């Protein structure tokens, strides 16, 4: 579904992504973890071109996303992205947030979009908050609406950039629950997260990143029980001492 070949990115002299080569298969759930500054967010943001790469190739669904003449907007419409800071549109209700893109991009008529949006909001447990504005919702609720909003475009791939890092601890669970359900339904997902419990339970594979490189790429069993790279071992040791 997603193919990365020798992807490199520099911020000035700083080498943020180093020769990243990986694939994500359909229906696979990949969790990306690692210390801060390792390039996890940068990597996931290159997949829908929120960040541009300096060399290498990225293909989504077989098509090179940097091809000449490729419509970036169409690419993004086909990939759902959930931000750490939710980024809901404050001037619209939860329902309107979910309807905005499908209607204005002419993917659906208003009635259809509304019906589907309500269905999605129900799916994240917030049908009763459809007419609420973001500032009336808690952080966890906002993030769940953000997930519904991304799903409203019916994307085959969902990307999550530290979706629970900005939440108070008691709200992390409700968002992870939604993500687990999505994974259970067979969605292709790439998640950057620090939630190791989620990774252990839901991920098909874990990419451990440090200094712009993917150092470990095994299954959760392999990663948690038998990490190969010393950095990964250090990372897991630090986390278990907390």
């Amino acid at each position, binding site marked *: 579904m997603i193919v990365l070949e020798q992807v490199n990115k520099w911020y000035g002299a700083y080498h943020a992504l180093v020769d990243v080569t990986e694939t994500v298969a359909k229906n696979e759930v990949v969790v990306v973890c690692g210390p801060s500054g390792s390039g996890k967010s940068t990597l996931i943001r290159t997949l*829908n071109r*929120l960040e541009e790469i300096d060399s290498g190739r990225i293909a989504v669904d077989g098509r090179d996303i940097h091809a000449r003449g490729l419509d970036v*907007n*169409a*690419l*993004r*419409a*086909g*990939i759902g*992205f959930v*931000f750490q*800071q939710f*980024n*809901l*549109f*404050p*001037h619209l209700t939860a329902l309107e947030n979910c309807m*905005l*893109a499908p209607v*204005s*991009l002419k993917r659906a008529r208003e009635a259809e979009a509304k019906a589907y949006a309500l269905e999605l909001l129900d799916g994240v447990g917030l049908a009763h908050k459809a007419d609420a504005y973001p*500032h*009336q919702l808690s952080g966890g609720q906002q993030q769940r609406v*953000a997930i519904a*909003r*991304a799903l409203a*475009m019916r994307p085959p791939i969902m990307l999550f950039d530290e979706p629970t890092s900005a939440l108070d601890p008691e709200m992390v669970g409700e968002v992870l629950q939604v993500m687990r359900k999505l994974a259970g339904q067979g969605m292709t997902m790439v998640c950057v997260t620090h939630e190791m419990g989620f990774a252990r339970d839901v991920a098909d594979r874990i990419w451990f990143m440090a200094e712009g490189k993917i150092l470990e790429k095994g299954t959760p069993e392999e990663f948690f029980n038998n990490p190969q790279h010393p950095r990964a071992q250090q990372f897991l040791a630090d986390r278990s001492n907390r």
Partner: protein
Amino acid sequence: MIELIHEYWLYFLVGQYPNGPLGGLSLTILLSGAALVLAMPLGLLLGVARVSPWRAVRWPVTALVQVVRAVPLLLVVFWAYFFLPAVTGVKTGQATTMLMTLVLFDAVYLAEIVAAGIRALPKGQMESARSLGLGYFAALRLVLLPQALKNVLPSLVNQLVSTIKATSLGYIIGLSEVSFIATQVNTLVFTKAVEVYIILALTYFVLCFGLSRLAFLLERRLGRRAGRVSPISL
């Protein structure tokens, strides 16, 4: 002072109307309102250009804004009133000249207000709109501008106050706005200069102070509705 007001209030309010063109306070208010409204489309366009990611769009507009803001408004009025007729052959009246100049002046300041409003929005808003597949202009139209324009409403009201004060420059080219009328009255009466000009000052004060209080209340109300506490109320 009361006799003065009693005698000249109508002249002060509407100038020579209906025996001549509209003047006085009505002209001041009408001219300011018209200028601001007419300047909105241009100001919006220039403001969006100011935050554009494309240099070819951003730089010329920035240059225009810097130049217009570096020069006194009166100078622009003089260019329009003395030079433009020589070039176009069309002699514009004082009111039209003032209106054109004020529209330009307002458009440039509105551009800055709109640009500031857009820049003040969290970066995530544009990103999340684009990540849903919305194009740059669709994102501006549906997500950024509705928020930005609402947030800068108090600044828009303050710009109206600035425009009202700027209309006074019409005096210098002989426009019968309220300051001009006041001086006419002063010439007629001759011995009551202090009263006349205090009345003029009070008129402006009531109008401008009233509007800026409105702006202040708007800002408080906008801050409260978004769930944030406005720093001013602390």
